[in-house]
């Protein structure tokens, strides 16, 4: 089947999925409670009439099917409505937050794979050596340490004690980078990025190392590796060309999933570091039952994951000639 036809078919199949997920999320959120009650909780002066007015303003007094239909028609025209908090267009909100999340996630995914690939190969090649045991134990530690723990420890040590990096936000702020004692917008962004990116990297790198080590060990036992060796091919070529490609192909799925999931941010990490990204915003909005924001972020994540899945499948077919798209 032609590539274009395949992609078109996959895209069409996504439509019912997206609609289904939107309906379920809408219903779940609706059963969670009334956002206006929560929004006005801190205001003892507000009257029931005023609350009713607000509900009417946001269309929350309409029957659920009507509300969903209104949301859907808006969604199909690319409009996610306005947030209940701050009354801002959700589109704009998401757009500005997405960049911060993508920046943080991309940096940590790239660093994670850059560390995991050589470490995993090395541990596999030097199987059962001191290096292997060291890499493996660190990996297990990394996997078992929860993100909130490493995040808090890092903030305490590198931010409060040593004062090297800021502990909250993505940029600006009164902080200048004390290590360099300079105020430069790019350095400032990097300084803010260091701790959350490190925490996220630590959370995934250990897992990636173990997967790659296992994959390499499996591949290095294969006959085609021994055959390459028997043909006098250099060790370097065997490891980094022949073995790595075979070991990394299954990891493509993982990479696709993590990039797909990345747009959702890491709610825990973003929250601890008050990172102005989608994850943190999602946690805030869910707590306040800010329907339009929660729906907007949910739909964005859904679409992103589905697209990442499609791209992963295409990449797979491109790397592995045995896989055909059908």
């Amino acid at each position: 089947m032609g590539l274009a036809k395949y992609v078109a078919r996959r895209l069409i199949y996504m439509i019912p999925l997206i609609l289904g997920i939107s309906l379920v999320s809408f219903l779940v959120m609706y059963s969670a409670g009334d956002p206006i009650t929560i929004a006005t909780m801190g205001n003892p002066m507000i009257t029931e009439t005023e609350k009713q007015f607000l509900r009417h303003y946001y269309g929350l007094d309409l029957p659920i099917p009507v509300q969903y239909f209104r949301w859907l028609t808006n969604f199909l025209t690319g409009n996610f409505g306005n947030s209940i908090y701050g009354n801002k267009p959700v589109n704009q909100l998401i757009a500005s937050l997405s960049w911060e999340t993508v920046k943080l996630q991309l940096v940590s995914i790239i660093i994670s794979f850059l560390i995991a690939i050589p470490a995993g190969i090395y541990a596999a090649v030097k199987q059962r050596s001191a290096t292997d045991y060291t890499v493996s134990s660190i990996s297990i530690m990394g996997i078992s340490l929860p993100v909130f723990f490493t995040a808090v420890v890092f903030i305490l040590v590198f931010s409060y004690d040593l004062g090297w990096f800021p502990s909250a936000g993505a940029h600006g702020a009164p902080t200048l980078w004390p290590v360099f004692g300079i105020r430069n917008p790019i350095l400032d962004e990097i300084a803010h990025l260091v701790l959350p990116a490190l925490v996220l990297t630590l959370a995934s790198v250990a897992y990636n190392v173990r997967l790659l080590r296992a994959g390499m060990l499996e591949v290095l036992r294969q006959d085609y590796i021994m055959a390459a060796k028997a043909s006098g091919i250099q060790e370097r070529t065997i490891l980094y060309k022949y073995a790595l490609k075979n070991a990394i192909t299954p990891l493509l799925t993982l990479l696709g999933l993590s990039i797909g999931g990345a747009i959702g941010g890491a709610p825990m990490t973003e929250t601890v570091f008050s990172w102005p990204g989608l994850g943190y915003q999602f946690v805030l909005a869910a707590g306040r039952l800010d329907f339009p924001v929660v729906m907007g972020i949910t739909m964005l994540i859904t679409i992103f994951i589905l697209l990442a899945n499609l791209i992963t499948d295409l990449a797979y077919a491109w790397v592995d000639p045995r896989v055909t798209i059908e």
Partner: protein
Amino acid sequence: MHILEVENLKTYFFTEAGIVKALDGATFNLEKGTTLGLVGESGSGKSVTSQSVLRIVPKPGKIVSGKILFEGEDILAKSENEMRNYRGKKISLIFQDPTSSLNPLFTIGSQLTEIVTQHEKMKKTEALEHVIKTLKLARLPDPEEEIYRYPHQFSGGMKQRICIARALLLNPQLLFADEPTTNLDVTIQAQILTLLKDLQREVGMTLVMITHDMGIVADMCKYVVVLYGGNVMETGMIETIFEKPHPYTEALLKAVPRLDQTKELVSIPGNIPNLIELPSGCVFHPRCRYAVDACKGNKPPLEEVEADHSIACIRWRELNGGR
């Protein structure tokens, strides 16, 4: 002249269950330009022998002691770097399973060309020409087109032709063919064997046929080395061996599959030995119909009992003396 001399070779696998003595003192010589049959049941150490000669024994295996001389040169004294000039270039190996011995993610053209360019100072296009020429030698139809294909796009027989071409790329003097037909259809088996026979004659290399099929040995080989439990039981000219065999070889010969029951191998009674705890004395004694108490004592050495015929058995003279 001997192209290969193997002396008291011990290759062990240090597994968690214990030390697997895959080769426990193997000794044999190989005449240049001939075809040698390396025979023995499954697990007797045939593949490990070829891996040892190329020094590609996989972990946790290790050559523990012994001597391997190739054209008089001590292989075990070579550095890893020097070894690369032997692998593929002087000594080659064809694997049992052509499917698993080709990398699934690279075209056959790229896999074979890499071997040429890593050994010879050749441009890519020249190397590709050479690859096509060698594939033609291995009778692969249309190599000009086929080099752009991936392994999974070929049939088993075609894949084995590709593997044979891969082994011949650098004109090796010595070629190990490790059960090259076991995984192929019967009709294809004959074609591949004929191809190997023809190539051996055309190219004039020394060929070691690893097999447990005495029929193939009788058809192709001039000399035979019989392995059992990591020990060489017998070496000699094919005629001598058929005439006055070692008790194990005799059992193997009886186990030759008859033509009307093609796949069914009549096996030797009893089990192949546990390589972690080898039987004392003659490793074959638990299964040998001629075994006496003395066989459990000392390991019988491999002795030249007549011209071009060596035997490791304390009773062979007695058993064959009357004839």
